[in-house]
């Protein structure tokens, strides 16, 4: 496959692995957090972690929007969908995410709620146009990558005079979460390991550019390398991180230069800032309340805000106390250290956030890597 195979070349990968091995100082450990779920998924899928030297360790970050969405927001969506006049449109991978009572949108659908799986924001607009007598709500979720399409959708709904269309907004911001991981007292309480650098978001950075990370790199003295989602992208970015650490630098570097610029996509940024504003705080599964990390619709677009339209209330719920997602997301523990991992918590019946989507740290380990937890006997 053109433009993909080039970035999955085995020979180049081995070469890069050799260079990383040669340049990494055997006297020290390197702990890098890959922020995005896309990175986590690729690391497991291509078995990349095991090509790195033993002292270069990847910590799987919280960058999967489905995983970090708290159970309370899923509960809100289920309550909304159970209202007889509501048609709720959601992206497919949200369907199985468990709320607080073990109920998911998929099970709510089986009990009669009108929930439709959509592949794009335009599908939801089409459904609203075809059913003018229904209250059609789009379950908007995602980081900066999926926010511009939601903004465009609201503009379109306004232009088309869609009177019974609204958006349940759950858009989240990545730099705030990185800031929180590096700083929040909440995190110190449950312990953390020192992170030596970040593999920065790929798709998110195409929108926001590399500039927003500069203050983080400066303030916390951590190198950040924006990396693409292909395995060679990540290998190269890891090498760039190793070099920064070795040379005592802490800069924002851009490995994914074929798609990301320093300023990002201005047009998309303007669309977003026209329609959305910051929430004071937003809850992340595993991280708790993170200040200024979520978006909501501006007052001028209140008619499209499902939370206003249906006076939805958020009731915070506690995660399963045995669940180690919080510690796993900060690299304090690994999936196998959790008592629930692979016993009561599997991709079929996820308990914690990291098992929810295929991009979560636990789900990736379970799906692609759990054989390494056992001793393998080859014939």
């Amino acid at each position, binding site marked *: 496959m053109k433009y993909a195979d080039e970035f999955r070349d085995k020979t180049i*990968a081995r070469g890069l692995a050799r260079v990383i091995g040669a340049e990494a100082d055997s006297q020290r450990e390197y702990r890098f957090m890959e922020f995005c779920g896309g990175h986590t998924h690729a690391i497991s899928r291509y078995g990349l972690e095991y090509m790195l030297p033993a002292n270069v360790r990847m910590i799987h970050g919280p960058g999967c929007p489905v995983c970090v969405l708290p159970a309370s927001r899923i509960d809100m969506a289920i309550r909304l969908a159970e209202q007889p006049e509501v048609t709720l449109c959601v992206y*497919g991978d949200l369907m199985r995410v468990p709320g607080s009572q073990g109920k998911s949108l998929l099970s709510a659908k089986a009990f009669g709620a009108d929930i439709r799986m959509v592949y794009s924001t335009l599908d939801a607009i089409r459904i609203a146009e075809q059913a003018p007598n229904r209250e059609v709500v789009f379950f908007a979720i995602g980081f900066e990558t999926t926010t511009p399409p939601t903004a465009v959708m609201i503009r379109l709904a306004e232009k088309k005079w869609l009177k019974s269309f609204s958006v349940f907004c759950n858009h989240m911001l990545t730099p705030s979460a990185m800031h929180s991981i590096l700083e929040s007292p909440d995190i110190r309480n449950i312990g953390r390991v020192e992170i030596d650098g970040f593999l920065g978001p790929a798709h998110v950075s195409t929108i926001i550019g590399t500039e927003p990370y500069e203050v983080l790199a400066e303030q916390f003295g951590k190198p950040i390398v924006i990396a693409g989602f292909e395995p060679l992208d990540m290998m190269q970015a890891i090498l760039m991180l190793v070099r920064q650490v070795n040379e005592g630098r802490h800069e924002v570097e851009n490995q994914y230069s074929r798609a990301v610029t320093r300023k990002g996509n201005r047009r998309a940024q303007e669309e977003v800032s026209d329609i959305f504003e910051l929430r004071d705080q937003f809850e992340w599964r595993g991280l708790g309340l993170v200040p200024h990390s979520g978006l909501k619709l501006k007052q001028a677009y209140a008619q499209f805000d499902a939370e206003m339209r249906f006076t939805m209330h958020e009731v915070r719920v506690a995660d399963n106390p045995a669940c180690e997602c919080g510690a796993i997301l900060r690299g304090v523990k690994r999936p196998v250290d959790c008592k629930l991992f692979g016993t009561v918590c599997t991709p079929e019946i996820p308990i914690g956030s990291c098992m929810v989507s295929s991009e979560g740290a636990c789900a990736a380990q379970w799906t692609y890597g759990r054989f390494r937890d056992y001793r393998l006997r080859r014939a």
Partner: protein
Amino acid sequence: MRAYQRKLDIKNGRVDLSHGAGGRAMAQLISGLFHEAFGNEWLARGNDQAAFDVGAGRMVMTTDGYVISPLFFPGGNIGSLAVHGTINDVAMGGARPLYLSASFIIEEGFRFSDLKTIADSMGEAARAAGVYIITGDTKVVERGKADGLFISTTGVGVLADGLDLSAEKARVGDRVLVSGSLGDHGTAIMSRRQNLAFETEIVSDSAALHDLVALMVAAGGSSIRVMRDPTRGGLAAMLNEIAHQSGLGFHLQEEAIPVKPAVAAACELLGLDPLHVANEGKLVAIVAPDMADAVLAAMKAHPLGCDAADIGEAVADNHQFVQMSTSFGGGRIVDWLSGEQLPRIC
């Protein structure tokens, strides 16, 4: 004097509740549409059952329901699929398929023209495979009670003496052979889903595999331990199933697994794994190592097996994992699909 009956208006007519009520309308639908399409001596006798001869050997029987959406897809429709799928289930036992039954559950309002197209392609698929549809049933349900058309087919075949293919016969060192490229059918279907339409030249691989199987059995006999067609859940589900039933693990080489570039690209866009995507004209055989090359050569000699490949081996593994060396040089598990195959959002 015969009562006048208006001809079936195939072009513009639609199925209504009377076509399943047991009266004249139903008789007319059966004789005018299904008999026409399937035409054979058993059906022509019009009995509630069909009596048939079978040759020497053990009998094989299988049944399957077809509830796909959309009903028409590049490379076939629900009718050809209902014939190929059941023939293949019989053939995977190493047997020669002989007869089929077909049961139709039709939603009120279904177009006669569509029903005729579907019945005709069933007849065509059966004739091409040398198999007869010898008995059937028709029901009509109210609008909204079925998604257009559901078809169930049952297949009967005979198995030569001495042949007994089963998953528990797999042994350490056995080779895993696949008859061609994976993921074509599922990708073709997805490309036509209403909310996902994308343009592609991929067509379904829907095909009857029993001739290919006959060549393989002639070449390999009982050194073929087990055969399966990787339909729903794809190669991944099928190998995990055999791993559980045999108590073994498998080790695959990603580079050896044939996947068409267009299928790989579509899966990449949708965030799917081609190893989880359904096939309808492919088989996987677990074969004793000493006969694997002979069976592979027999497969390659048949048009439906020209892209056949040896993709891995059975290994001793208490955990019954299906593992794969990735083309990138790492290793990973090839697991069952969790839940439904859902595209990822980012």
